[in-house]
């Protein structure tokens, strides 16, 4: 008798637990519920109920801002934690920022963030790449920053070209979803000693640049194989950025990649490889390879941003310098961004804006950009001694005026990750012509 009673109790308890779990699961995407999740590990913010429930009332004082970010190295991770500590200790509104680090994961950061936000995670602010914007905007996940920007005096401290890029990413004229933070502007690294050996000066036009690539391809021992290649061409992942400079150098554009000018730019890119001015591995070379090739002295020039300048100086000292990509019929260089966004589900948008504005123009901007070597978006910080005395940063700042991004469309992520490397690989190896390759790229981006 007792055993039967026990069995029944176990069955009822199990059914109740399963039912509760299902109900909990069916609770859906209730993003307004602030309990659970990260809040469990954070001290409960001291916000009065009235303030939290009324969206029109500023909820700044004592608010907690959940901040999701990625850090490229353990040093950057420590730096971000220092910045958060500094902000928490010095802001006068009693705002507490809680930093939550997540891996960059080869770009998977945005996908994980999307899943979390869709699942109702309590995230107020996240670090950002512009290319992720359409996905989040189409799902109404990002807050429009326009009301905050209208009354913020830091707007004018940031270049108008940067604001234009931020607005364009959202796809709406009347809304800005992304807050600028820092930039990685591509420029050309070169080895002054190899330029001297080749008897050339720093190129000032696109034509001179192509000639410099040829001149710095040097066969020192006369065995028929170059010991130094003029250009560390990037045909693998991320190669669309330097490639874009060639296309624009001939007057082409991303909007019409099948124009004669765009095709001519592509032909130049192919010729650099097929004429033997780039290492044989170029069709598959990505970031690590072009940097390693430059470090080992195999290439005389390559294109990258300040993120690699520390390593360059460590290896070469003064025997490495930089110049902006020269102007031809047109001029363009990739201006990659790292920015921030505030989520629509955030209940502390004002406090969140204080944090992102601190990162964009305040002490947070100075600390982060000086610590990482990235280019500041704030004109005031750019004018500081640290950046004025750095030749790599100077090349970046000089490139800022013609910096841009690959058109941000729904097709862009796949175009960058798959279509471009495959197509450019075929073009470099002569399997398709420049014209055919450009048609493929055009169709895939604007399909």
């Amino acid at each position: 008798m007792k055993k039967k009673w026990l069995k029944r109790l176990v069955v009822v308890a199990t059914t109740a637990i399963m039912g509760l779990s299902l109900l909990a699961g069916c609770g859906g995407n209730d993003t307004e519920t602030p309990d659970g999740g990260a809040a469990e590990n954070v001290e409960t913010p001291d916000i009065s109920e009235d303030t939290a429930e009324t969206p029109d009332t500023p909820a700044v004082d004592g608010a907690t801002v959940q901040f999701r970010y990625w850090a490229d190295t353990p040093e950057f991770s420590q730096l971000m934690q220092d910045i958060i500590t500094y902000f928490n200790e010095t802001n006068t509104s009693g705002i507490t920022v809680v930093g939550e680090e997540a891996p960059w994961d080869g770009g998977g950061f945005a996908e994980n963030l999307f899943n979390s936000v869709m699942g109702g995670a309590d995230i107020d602010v996240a670090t950002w790449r512009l290319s992720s914007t359409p996905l989040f905007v189409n799902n109404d996940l990002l807050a429009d920053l326009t009301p905050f920007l209208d009354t913020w005096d830091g707007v004018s401290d940031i270049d108008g070209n940067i604001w234009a890029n931020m607005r364009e990413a959202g796809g709406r004229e009347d809304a800005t979803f992304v807050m600028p933070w820092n930039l990685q502007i591509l420029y050309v690294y070169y080895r002054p000693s190899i330029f001297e050996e080749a008897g050339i000066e720093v190129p000032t036009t696109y034509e001179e640049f192509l000639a410099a690539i040829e001149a710095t391809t040097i066969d020192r021992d006369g065995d028929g194989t170059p010991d130094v290649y003029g250009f560390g061409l990037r045909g693998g992942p991320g190669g669309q950025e330097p490639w874009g400079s060639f296309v624009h150098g001939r007057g082409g554009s991303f909007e019409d990649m099948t124009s004669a000018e765009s095709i001519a730019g592509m032909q130049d890119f192919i010729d650099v490889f097929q004429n033997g001015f780039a290492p044989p591995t170029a069709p598959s070379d990505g970031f690590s390879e072009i940097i390693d090739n430059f470090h080992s002295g195999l290439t005389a020039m390559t294109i990258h941003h300040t993120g690699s300048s520390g390593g360059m100086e460590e290896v070469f000292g003064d025997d490495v310098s930089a110049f902006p990509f020269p102007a031809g019929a047109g001029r363009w260089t990739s201006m990659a961004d790292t920015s921030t966004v505030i989520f629509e589900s955030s209940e502390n948008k004002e406090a969140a804006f204080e944090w992102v504005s601190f990162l964009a123009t305040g002490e947070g901007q100075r600390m982060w950009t000086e610590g990482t070597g990235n280019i500041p978006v704030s004109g005031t910080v750019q004018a500081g001694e640290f950046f004025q005395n750095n030749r790599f940063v100077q090349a970046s700042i000089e490139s800022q005026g013609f910096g841009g991004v690959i058109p941000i469309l729904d097709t862009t992520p796949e175009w960058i990750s798959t279509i471009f490397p495959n197509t450019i690989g075929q073009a470099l190896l002569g399997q398709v012509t420049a014209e055919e390759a450009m048609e493929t790229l055009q169709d895939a981006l604007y399909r």
Partner: protein
Amino acid sequence: MKKQSILSRIFLLYLPLIAILLFILFPFYWTFITSVRPAEDLLGRVTYWPSSVSFEAYRQLFTTTVDFFAAIRNSFIVAALTTAVSLTVSTLAGYAFSRYEFIGKRALMTMFLCNNMFPTVLLMIPLFTIMRTLGFLHTPWSLVLSYTTFTIPFSVWLILGFLKDLPMSLEEAALVDGCNRRKAFLKIIMPVLGPCLVATGVYIFMTSWNEYTFAMMFTNNATRTIPVALRNLIGQLGVRWDLLTAGGILTVIPVCIMFFFAQKRLVTGLTAGAVKG
């Protein structure tokens, strides 16, 4: 029988054995020497031994924001709990499926198989919502529950296969001798099931030890596991090879130790017969 000459043993046994061992062990050797190379040796000319040995990468793993000790602790808690929960449930379920006839048995077993056919990404958002609502998010339980959803079905099938091969006469003999079902299961079946449980346990432990996707979604800085901590070392601007390889070496050590002990039980299990005659 003709005795093999020393020469033929060398060419037919030892040399192929050495070649296979080299093939298998070289990646581990390479990982290890990368972890102890000084930073300046990591790039540039390839050498098969370090110019000097430095344990700086190991030091940094434990003293910087990587906090590898916490990651090891968290991974161990999650893997141990998952193994305990999955093994308990799977053993009982496997026993029920193999010894009892009940309505819906076939459908349930098929459902267990189908469960593994759903791509993980499909489960991600619903599971996240469930964990958040239950208050399990950012606790080891969120991972334990997630991992058991795909380790239990596989383990049930694994144990079921083993149990089906066990002759019923073993239990029948116990029952005749006065045991009840529970006692027969604990005293007779469980000891025989030992090697199978070890093999299944190793599978469950390894799966949860190495899992990344759920761990990335359901943990925070305090509960982060090893795969997430290591993935943090792969940034946009490059890979911290020294820290990554040092972390890799430390990660495989517990697994190797476990295999070392598990191997004995596995071999015992393979050679032990159930009933004679």
